[in-house]
């Protein structure tokens, strides 16, 4: 690492994992800056959880290198793990113990955690995820969402430099999802790096500063959200009642437009929309000029970078809820 490079919380080089003949993670080069909220995005089965297991020393890499918090894994694992909190592939708890007893158990497994402050820290963590009222309830009586919160509370038992959350909003209702988003943002206020995986783009877009996109074990994009947006195509969006006429004008300028049906809103503007990628050599004002000159009634015209959704669908080839 050069001195100029920002310090990385997680860095992998050519990280690869195979299960039998199947390559589940393929030559992954992750670079997660310290202090970022890093979204690890990919459809189900794209290798996110497997990568996380390797980052935490649960599974060994078939080949490649992993550095977490500047330490080489797996050699430095004992020194790294106390500085990392994690939720991996859903929560896992003893159903016959209460929520707080479960956290006390896991905290007592950490030799760096102080027994003197244990109860207080457990109570604080439960409060942060809104489980204080259910602290004494057996986990078998918890809903999936409550278990998920308890799993997040476990990651917060001691102050951590890195928190890894594997699909933290699975099973949460919209209110719970909002709370988790808020919680994740509040973590970075204290300088913690958060690495959060998801198969839902909207979630990543709303809480992350950076993201990486996985597709079938391959990293297909990585960077800050702004950088990712810029890699997409700029598009124009035209609202007009004269769709056919406009299509012809745009084609004359070299723009291949798609017509979108008018949004179904009670009566008002029932005009179709035309969306087309904007080639670099064409200026936006040129288009408007040509449209008006040809008698197209322009009721709305915008130029926008592509949405992340466009980018991710293009990168992963499918919608995000599609299992592999």
């Amino acid at each position, binding site marked *: 690492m050069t001195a100029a490079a920002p310090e990385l919380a997680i860095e992998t080089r050519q990280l690869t994992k195979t299960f039998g003949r199947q390559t589940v993670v393929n030559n992954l080069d992750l670079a997660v800056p310290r202090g970022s909220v890093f979204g690890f995005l990919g459809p189900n089965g794209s290798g996110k959880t497997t990568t996380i297991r390797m980052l935490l020393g649960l599974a060994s890499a078939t080949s490649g290198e992993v550095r977490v918090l500047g330490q080489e894994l797996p050699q430095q694992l004992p*020194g790294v793990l106390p500085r990392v909190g994690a939720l*991996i*592939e859903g929560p896992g708890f*003893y159903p016959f113990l209460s929520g707080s007893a479960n956290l*006390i158990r896991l*905290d007592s497994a950490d030799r760096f955690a102080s027994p003197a402050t244990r109860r*207080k820290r457990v109570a604080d963590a439960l409060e942060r995820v809104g489980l204080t009222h259910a602290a004494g309830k057996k986990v078998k009586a918890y809903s999936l969402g409550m278990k998920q919160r308890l799993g997040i509370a*476990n990651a917060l038992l001691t*102050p951590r430099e890195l928190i890894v959350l594997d699909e933290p909003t699975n099973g949460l209702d919209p209110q719970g999802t909002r709370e988790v988003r808020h919680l994740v943002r509040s973590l970075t206020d*204290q300088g913690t790096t958060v690495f959060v995986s998801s198969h839902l783009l909207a979630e990543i877009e709303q809480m992350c500063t950076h993201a990486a996109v996985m597709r079938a074990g391959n990293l297909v994009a990585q960077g800050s959200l702004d950088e990712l947006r810029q890699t997409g195509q700029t598009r124009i969006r035209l609202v007009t009642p004269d769709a056919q006429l406009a299509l012809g004008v745009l084609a004359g300028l070299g723009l291949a437009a798609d017509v979108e049906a008018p949004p179904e809103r009670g009566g008002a503007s029932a005009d179709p929309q035309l969306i087309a990628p904007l080639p670099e050599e064409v200026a936006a004002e040129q288009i408007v000029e040509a449209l008006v000159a040809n008698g197209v009634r322009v009721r709305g015209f915008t130029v926008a970078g592509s949405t992340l959704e466009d980018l991710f669908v293009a990168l992963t080839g499918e919608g995000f809820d599609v299992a592999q």
Partner: protein
Amino acid sequence: MSPSNSGVASVASGAAAAAARPRAGWSFLASELVLLFRRRRTWVLLATLAAIPVLVAVAVRLSTARAPGSGRGPAFLDQITQNGLFVSVVALTICVPLFLPLAVGVVAGDTIAGEAGAGTLRYLLVAPVGRIRLLLVKFAAAIAFCLAATVVITAAGALIGAALFPVGPVVLLSGDTIGVPDSIVRALLIAGYVTVSLAGLTAIGLFVSTLTDAPVGAMAATVVVSIVAQVLDSLPQLDWLHPYLFTHYWLGFADLLRQPVEFSSFSSNALLQLAYVLIFGSLAIGRFTSKDILS
């Protein structure tokens, strides 16, 4: 309750905490023991074992009313009627071949596979508990269960024996007579012997438990191993093998009822069990430290 200990403490203090020396980690062993002995399943196992001396004593009491000294059944069965303190020894003799291996199989087979099955193993390991430390703590807790199980049988036997039969000086196999306090010491020695006897099986169960994420499979396999060993031990054609079977000295605790105490089978047994613990402990460490945790 200093602010640095609260949940919203800064990362800097977290880093400082991480840089601090780790504690010895006794609280995890304590947590493991509490977890084991608070579980309803553990209580059911112990209660079942405690019921065996009670059943034996009640059955003997009822039958001797009709046919005293029939001479059938395990060694010492007849002596129960003369001295209630023998109930413990008879109950242990009955429990050693099957009931104790069953109970130990459940606990030892569950050690790692149970955590894997519940999804808690990955959280313990990232907490972090080192993998070798986890095995050591699990083994220690399972041995504590072996001790609890034999002590429960011994104590239940002594109590029910005192309730249903006369208690007094005990006539030993060697013909000598010892007093009640001495006989209690002997009973505890026997409980210790049986606990040591179960160490090898516990290590085998621990190893099997690292092979699977299904605790029931590991429990069953452990019990089956103990039965197979006893069957092999009973085949005269295999007598060259017998001294190496971990079940070979299981019933050898009768030597502790001689005067003076005959410790040779105790030490042979302890040595054999130690060998099994070392071998299967190493196998468990080798397997578990190199295993991908995908549960």
